[in-house]
């Protein structure tokens, strides 16, 4: 056992779809409680990285550990074998994810969106789940919307419900996949406000894929720039944004700030 256990550890992670190499050998460690922003051009593989961590997709090659335990493999008699669904479910319980397009359950009220998984997966009582859901929804400023259906909410409100829904599962790691990209500009602020609170007030490990450069700079402990499926550069946000060493990083930042 190392004295400093990494929350997430990736080695040589690769992903390809029919000859297209989306990720080409990613080595990355994320410390417990760290707030990490992943930036890069679209199609650079940032989202795939999150999706593999959430077990929505399987890596082609490489190795991932969460809290020192392999994610996609398990050990049997000292040998590594592909993870079975039981192992995946146990590992998955450590991770939560918020999606670009919210993916709320449209046939459920806001309250049921937030309570369903805790009741059916964590097996906590309905009363307890609802009490906790009210608390979380209050925190994201939607305490008055518990009985609304997702279609009655604005994009910003939907995304805040999605955040509450993910938090209700007590994840140790939260993944945010371009969570403000699908929002009208005037609604971005309310979602970033919630993220800011989370970043400052909790010791959850957070990995954000984002185009909100100013926001990433404000809340991240570290920024990773990915291009063509490789990590080009990483470091504290002050340095990455103020004096990037790589040309590609500079060009990307320039293009995104001009937009």
């Amino acid at each position: 056992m190392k004295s400093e256990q990494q929350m997430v550890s990736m080695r040589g992670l690769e992903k390809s779809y029919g000859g297209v190499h989306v990720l080409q050998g990613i080595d990355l460690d994320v410390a417990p409680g760290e707030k990490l922003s992943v930036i890069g051009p679209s199609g650079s593989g940032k989202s795939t990285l999150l999706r593999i961590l959430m077990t929505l997709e399987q890596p082609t090659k490489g190795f991932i550990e969460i809290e020192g335990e392999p994610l996609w493999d398990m050990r049997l008699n000292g040998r590594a074998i592909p993870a079975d669904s039981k192992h995946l479910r146990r590992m998955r319980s450590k991770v939560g994810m918020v999606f670009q397009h919210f993916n709320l359950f449209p046939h459920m009220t806001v309250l049921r969106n937030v309570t369903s998984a805790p009741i059916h997966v964590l097996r906590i009582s309905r009363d307890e789940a609802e009490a906790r859901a009210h608390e979380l929804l209050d925190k994201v400023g939607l305490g008055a919307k518990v009985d609304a259906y997702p279609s009655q909410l604005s994009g910003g409100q939907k995304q805040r419900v999605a955040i509450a829904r993910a938090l209700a599962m007590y994840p140790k790691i939260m993944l945010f996949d371009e969570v403000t990209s699908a929002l009208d500009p005037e609604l971005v602020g309310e979602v970033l406000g919630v993220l800011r609170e989370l970043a400052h007030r909790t010791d959850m490990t957070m990995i954000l894929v984002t185009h909100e450069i100013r926001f990433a700079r404000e809340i991240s402990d570290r920024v990773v720039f990915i291009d063509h499926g490789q990590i080009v550069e990483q470091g504290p946000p002050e340095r990455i944004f103020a004096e990037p060493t790589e040309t590609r990083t500079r060009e990307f930042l320039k293009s995104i700030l001009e937009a």
Partner: protein
Amino acid sequence: MAYGACNVTFDWSIALETLPALLSALRITAFATVLGMLAAAVLGLVWAIARRSPKRMVSSLAGLAVEFIRSTPLLIQIYFLFYVLPEIGIVMSPMFTGVIALGLHYSAYLSEVYRAGVEGVPKGQWEAARALNLGRLETWRLVILPQALPPVVPAMGNYLIAMFKDTPMLSAITVLELLQTAKVIGAERFRYLEPLTLVGLLFLLLSLGASLLVRWGEGYLGKAQAR
């Protein structure tokens, strides 16, 4: 020939006399339809879910079974269940055989209907379910089916009507449903015109009524979806 044709005039008194027997046979027809539909609805769902199984064996077998059932005539399936199964020691009453045959046959069609419904559920819903760590069963029960089923209820209604109209095939294995009863009455009285006409009319009335219900249901569900 002209004389013979004149002889065939619709006799209302015969029609009225045979109506009670036909109405009671209608109960058998309705019973077979409802039970057959229930069996088809459950089995069709099993096919649809099996076809999406991550296990290749399960999904291919289910796909093959559905294809096989859809590509062979219902009447042959009915005969097979009724005449061949007893040879391997499985003996079922005509009515039970008929319900099983209707259920099996229509389950193949309903599995396609379910599949269309399931494919209409966005991929993001599956991903959200997985991100929330829901198991396979909970994902289907809590997330996918509640979204996949309402839009396909009208299509299911149409298959219910189709199945209703296929129940006369059960007369082939002596189930005393509408057609078989009409044939029996015809043989007794040497008059087929009135009982067969009445049977046709009963099917027409009920099918029309059911179509109207389905259309009304479509509108109702359409509004519920828009919510």
